[in-house]
């Protein structure tokens, strides 16, 4: 590769370069594929130092939560919902994907300050890697959910072929946008991390993860529209528990995913050139 011909003009933000927008070259595509792969592999190796135990650990958290709510609502409060444990884990695994992404997003840029200060690369790669990592975790927890389904005599249907990828794509887009937003804003307002922890905690109870949405009093139904995670969680519960995905909620989830993606990317794009100054 003739690196000497690599001419870079560093100009003030806002000034358009003479060359204008260019498609990434083949070398660049290979490079960013490698960068993503090595970043995801890093997280993965660190998390699963010894494979079998590591896998069990990553499932333990949502399963422990499911157990707590099962005891609380099914045994203590005598909540009457058939196959309640399946209902719980069908909502809790997707929820953990969301909340883990939000938590790790706080440090996606902040935790790589020395790289951001010195090396030039697309910073969004760091966020993309952490979101991809959580996606992998979610994917390997799907067999557990299916196991619970089979225990209750329910089986994946043909519609899984399109609904599963569609929901994964929607959730991926939504978490990526959110993570980009949080990772960026947390560089400028360092206390966002505390705030986002509290908000996620509140949203966990607002979102119908541990109770069916029909239990919401009618004058509280608007919450399902206002909470970005509610439609998505309802879709997952539809897939894993009810047997069919509600179309209107899927459309709403897609809309929210688009909004999150656009807002996250715009904020990132507007502030990315200042990262090295502020980090």
């Amino acid at each position, binding site marked *: 590769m003739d690196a000497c011909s690599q001419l870079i003009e560093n100009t003030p933000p806002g000034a358009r370069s003479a060359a204008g927008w260019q498609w990434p070259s083949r070398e660049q595509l290979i490079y960013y594929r490698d960068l993503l792969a090595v970043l995801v592999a890093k997280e993965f190796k660190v998390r699963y130092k010894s494979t079998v135990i590591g896998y069990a650990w990553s499932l333990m958290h949502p399963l422990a939560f499911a157990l707590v709510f099962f005891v609380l609502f099914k045994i203590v409060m005598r909540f009457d919902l058939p196959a309640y444990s399946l209902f719980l884990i069908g909502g809790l695994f997707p929820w953990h994907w969301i909340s883990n992404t939000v938590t790790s997003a706080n440090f996606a840029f902040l935790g790589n300050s020395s790289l951001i200060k*010195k090396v030039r690369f697309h910073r969004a790669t760091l966020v993309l890697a952490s979101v991809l990592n959580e996606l992998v975790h979610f994917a390997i927890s799907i067999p557990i959910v299916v196991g619970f389904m089979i225990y209750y005599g329910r089986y994946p249907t043909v519609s899984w072929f399109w609904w599963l990828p569609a929901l994964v794509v929607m959730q991926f887009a939504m978490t990526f946008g959110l993570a980009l937003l949080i990772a960026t804003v947390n560089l400028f307002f360092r206390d966002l991390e505390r705030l986002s922890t509290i908000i996620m905690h509140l949203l966990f109870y607002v979102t119908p993860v541990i109770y069916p949405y029909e239990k919401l009093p009618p004058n509280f139904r608007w919450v399902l529209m206002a909470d970005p995670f509610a439609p998505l969680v309802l879709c997952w519960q539809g897939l894993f528990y009810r047997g069919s995905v509600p179309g209107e909620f899927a459309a709403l989830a897609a809309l929210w995913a688009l909004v999150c993606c656009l807002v996250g990317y715009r904020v990132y794009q507007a502030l990315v050139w200042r990262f090295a100054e502020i980090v």
Partner: protein
Amino acid sequence: MSSDPAIQFRHVTKEYHVENAVLGGLKNLVLHLPTQIRAMRARKPFCALQDLSLEIAQGESLSVIGRNGAGKSTLLGLIAGVLRPSAGTVVTRGRICPLLELGAGFHADLTGRENIVLNGILLGLTRREVLARLDEIIDFSGLAQFVDRPLRTYSSGMTARLGFSVAVHLSPNILLVDEALAVGDLEFQQKCLARMQQFRSDAVTMVFVSHDMESVARVSDRVAWMDGGRLREIGPPQQVIEHYHAFVHPTVAAA
């Protein structure tokens, strides 16, 4: 082609907006909104570089000296392309490789070998390129017997050796070094200096920021003395260092 300078600063100004509102966090911003907005309106940017023009030829090694806050690291950041100028243009030709701080771009739980691959890719090589150099890097670091152990078992000297070994094998056209020359033991330092000499004969452009005048004099063709965001003097190492010393020492004596 080779007559073009490797790095060119054309009337570059860099200002930083120091935002107290932001530094205080979200809570502070919301609780003291009116005061914070007034403060933001009244803010004055801090000028780190002022109308700087500078050319660094291909294969030249330049050292930048000056007091803290003189704009040295800003200069490096602009070359690396991580900072954007407020005005003017910085043109660079060729692959730029910064030397990272101790342990940056490494992960303590990965082995030395895995860290070499991670670090090499973070610094701009593709996976294939890193793997092609892997043996050479391990050999240069002299850590062959530790390379499959996790990095957390390494001493800081060993970590620094690993980082330096990766950086010098990236075949950069422009190498940026920010106060990081003295790594490892004497033997490794000799190795590094030999490598620097080889870089010089390979026409690699190098920019050092350092407070160690002895190594500055040894490795550079020219020295730039920065003061208050301006280039105060640029020229042969001995001369500039002498003037710098003469400038600094009276103030030290007076204090």
